[in-house]
């Protein structure tokens, strides 16, 4: 009895060892012609009969291409376009928001001479020419984005959308607003949506020691630039530095806005 149990036990043990180590299977086996290593899994899927080959899924999304950005603000740009079109008198370039930096740049430009004139067409002349030709908004959008993608033009940072495109809608709206302000004619545009009804905006009432405080947050929607958000929430894209300053920790520069990003919206 004991001998039988012992024999069975030894047989079971041998079977287990055979299953684990598979001494008779070798690379010569025609069914396992591919030596599978971890690195090779993507190219050589395991030859499991009936199973669909595994296709590697992209782990990281394709990086959003960064457009060339310029120091000029959109305000300066829309003014320059109108000056180009002869609607308003040309003005001095808009100051850099930080006075210390503006002073340094002015001093450096005084010593080193004025910056060289751009050899390539710039965004301002591109838009002005298209408007002069009576082109559609869609045409201008395509034209500007093609030039920006090719790196031919630099765009204001607040006009770069979450997808890395140029927000021409906000630019054209600013040009129309500025033109109507300059000529005294009311714009024929639809009014900007009221902040309260803007999708993506949430208003929270925060309890504090003395009374309550209203905090506003905004979730970036597809296709939006920082300038568009400022236009939507403050009525003027020129307010974008306010949002940028309040969200510095999650936004390295004004042209790096991301869809779904939750931004703090400070009171104007």
């Amino acid at each position: 009895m004991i001998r039988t149990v012992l024999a069975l036990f030894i047989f079971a043990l041998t079977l287990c060892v055979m299953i684990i180590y598979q001494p008779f299977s070798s690379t010569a086996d025609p069914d396992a012609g591919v030596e599978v290593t971890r690195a090779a899994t993507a190219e050589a899927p395991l030859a499991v009969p009936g199973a669909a080959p595994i296709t590697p899924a992209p782990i990281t999304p394709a990086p959003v291409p960064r457009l060339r950005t310029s120091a000029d603000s959109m305000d300066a740009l829309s003014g320059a376009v109108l000056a180009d079109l002869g609607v308003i008198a040309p003005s001095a370039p808009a100051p850099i928001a930080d006075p210390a930096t503006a002073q340094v740049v002015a001093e450096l430009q005084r010593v080193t001479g004025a910056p060289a004139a751009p050899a390539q067409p710039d965004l301002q002349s591109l838009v002005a020419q298209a408007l002069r030709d009576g082109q559609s908004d869609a045409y201008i959008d395509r034209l500007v984005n093609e030039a920006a993608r090719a790196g031919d033009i630099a765009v204001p940072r607040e006009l770069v959308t979450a997808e890395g495109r140029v927000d021409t809608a906000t630019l054209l709206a600013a040009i129309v607003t500025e033109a109507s302000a300059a000529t005294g004619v009311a714009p024929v545009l639809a009014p900007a949506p009221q902040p309260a009804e803007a999708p993506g905006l949430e208003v929270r009432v925060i309890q504090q020691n003395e009374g309550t405080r209203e905090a506003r947050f905004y979730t970036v929607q597809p296709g939006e630039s920082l300038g568009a958000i400022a236009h939507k929430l403050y009525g003027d894209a020129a307010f974008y530095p306010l949002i940028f300053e309040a969200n510095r920790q999650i936004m390295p520069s004004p042209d790096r806005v991301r869809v779904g990003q939750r931004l703090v919206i400070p009171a104007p």
Partner: protein
Amino acid sequence: MRIRRVAACCAAVFLAGLSATAQEVAITEGKPDATFTLKDQTFRITRNQDTEAVLTGEFARTSRECPPFCIQPMRIADGVDTIAELELIALLETDIAAGRALLIDSRLPDWYGQGTIPGAVNVPFSTLDPQNPYRDEILQALGAVPGPDGGLDFTGALELVLFCNGPWCSQSPQAITNLLEAGYPADKLLYYRGGMQGWQSLGLTVHVLQEG
């Protein structure tokens, strides 16, 4: 006749002595001054001719608190050369006057206004901090060009000589560190370690922009 000749001789000797007194303190032997023009403004560097002069006021102090006013090393970073007064004066007369290089005072504007090295431009160290979102504007004013990948191309950037208050001042070393981090080539940066302390201790001309 003879008396007249003696008198003429005496007068000649006296005048020679007088002119010798006027040029008693030169920059180097045979070089009493350095003159250069920068953007239509002519600067002349000489030394204080009063051989009894001593430093007074802020730059006579020897023992500022450290930190923050700690002694700076001779070499700030690999590839950044450190220079002294004669090299700086030579650069002012050549590369800086020709617009190929810039002398940068890294101190804050009030210090710059109270007195700086002739020909210096004020770029406070704080404006080169990575926290300044407009730093690229300064780098572009220094000759950097935006590249196609969103970065900056420093190929055409100016050579810079940076200084601050002296060997105990960390502002220009900080500015150099920040410039290097921003991608500025080390071989385009020079450090004048002597700063205002070294400059003034030799009685060299200080350019004052404002009273204060």
